[in-house]
């Protein structure tokens, strides 16, 4: 009988291997993220002071949309090819398997988006003093997005129209993350202190880490029956 960590490790390994084999597809949210960012100056004008004011919010909204796009792969594919039944019927704790899926999702979407964000923030004329807060905030925030997105993904896993429904369920839950994340960047960019907002963001991510795997596991057990 494999120990409780074995399922987590096996699933994480599987997902990273799969992501590596189709890295082109995995890069799509990143390209989306970059393209939309490039559209903003075209829409509002190239004036640096205006762009700098919009930058914290815009980069965060783009990151949110990028992870949301990719959240479709969280459980839906496993549902369609039947692998989800193996997860649900494994003697391993389901929440731990869910956590493995979430961590893989974050490593494949959230982390690259975070790493790409300074470049895009620079395109939007964000002052350099805001960059550390942006990277730290997005690193935490995208993990929270993946965790909350897993609950939405699990609830809509068997629904054909889940693509449209999932954001409806999940977006209200993203509000606190967005508020603290953007506030941290805006404060740091204005030369202020961002540690308080980042600490609150960290607390929310920690809470999501505690609650979401269990909620998503409960949702999967329900949602597997369309």
């Amino acid at each position, binding site marked *: 009988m494999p120990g409780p960590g074995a399922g987590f490790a096996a699933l994480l390994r599987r997902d990273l291997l799969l992501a590596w084999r189709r890295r082109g597809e995995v890069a799509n949210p990143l390209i989306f993220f970059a393209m939309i960012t490039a559209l903003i100056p075209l829409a509002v004008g190239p004036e640096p002071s205006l762009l700098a004011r919009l930058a914290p919010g815009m980069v965060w909204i783009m990151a949110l949309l990028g992870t949301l796009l990719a959240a479709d792969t969280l459980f839906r594919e496993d549902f369609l090819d039947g692998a989800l039944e193996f997860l649900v019927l494994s003697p391993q704790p389901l929440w731990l398997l869910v956590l493995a899926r979430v961590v893989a999702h974050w490593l494949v979407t959230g982390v690259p988006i975070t790493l790409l964000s300074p470049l895009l923030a620079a395109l939007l004329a964000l002052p350099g003093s805001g960059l550390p807060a942006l990277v730290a905030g997005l690193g935490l925030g995208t993990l929270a997005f993946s965790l909350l997105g897993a*609950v939405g993904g699990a*609830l*809509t896993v068997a*629904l054909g*129209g*889940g693509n449209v*429904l999932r954001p*409806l*369920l999940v*977006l*209200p*839950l993203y*509000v*606190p993350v967005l*508020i*603290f994340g953007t*506030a941290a960047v805006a404060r740091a960019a204005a030369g202020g202190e961002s540690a308080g907002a980042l600490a*609150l963001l960290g607390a*929310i991510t920690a*809470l999501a880490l505690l*609650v979401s795997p269990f*909620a998503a596991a*409960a*949702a999967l057990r*329900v*949602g597997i*029956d*369309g």
Partner: protein
Amino acid sequence: MARSGAFWQRLHRWASPPGFYRLSGRWVPWLAAASLALLALGLVWGLLYAPPDARQGNSYRIIYLHVPASFLALAGYYVMAVAGAIHLIWRVKLADMLMSAAAPLGAALTFLALFSGSLWGKPTWGTYWVWDARITSMLVLLFLYLGVMALRQAYASRETAGRACAVLALVGTVNIPIIYKSVDWWYSLHQPATIRLTAAPSMHPDMFKPLLVMIVAFYLFYAWVLILNTRAEILSRERRAAWVRELAEEDVT
């Protein structure tokens, strides 16, 4: 022991759809009369007799609708979530019927709170929509309600829909305090010290008493409509059951 056995038996009878249907039938006229009387009293008192506010004049009177509606909007979400939890854990079907009745009612009250808030915004701020902390939280709450309702619609199986909505409502319950706190925090960051809809620092007792009446009236009204909705839900789901047929035949003859 015998007493507690009798208690569980009685509880079980209430929790069965026909038992609840019969019992609640006796409550409905009382709730209807009490809530309508209190609503009339509170409205007349608040709108006609309470003194005008020193700064806002008469426009503050919208609080007699706005405050009770936003109380109930929030409380309604918790009613929904608790019913969902009861359904999820003990598989009480009645709780699911209550939950599906509570969602549109709560959404309607949230909408009323938003609508009355924006009406108040026009004379106060000169615009119908201001990103006030309370109104913004209400908007997010409306989205949470709409999510639960959309999820219930999406499932073909009622059993799965009920349990999925319960999980979502419980997740929302954990999130609501965080959302409210974060929106307050965000608001204090961007708009320090303007007039806020409910933060009247020293409300005159003559203004406050009708508000209390309206709050109680709204609670009773909520209970009344919730029970009516639940009874309709019970009849529609149990329409094939013998007791509903008997009921229908009684009505015809």
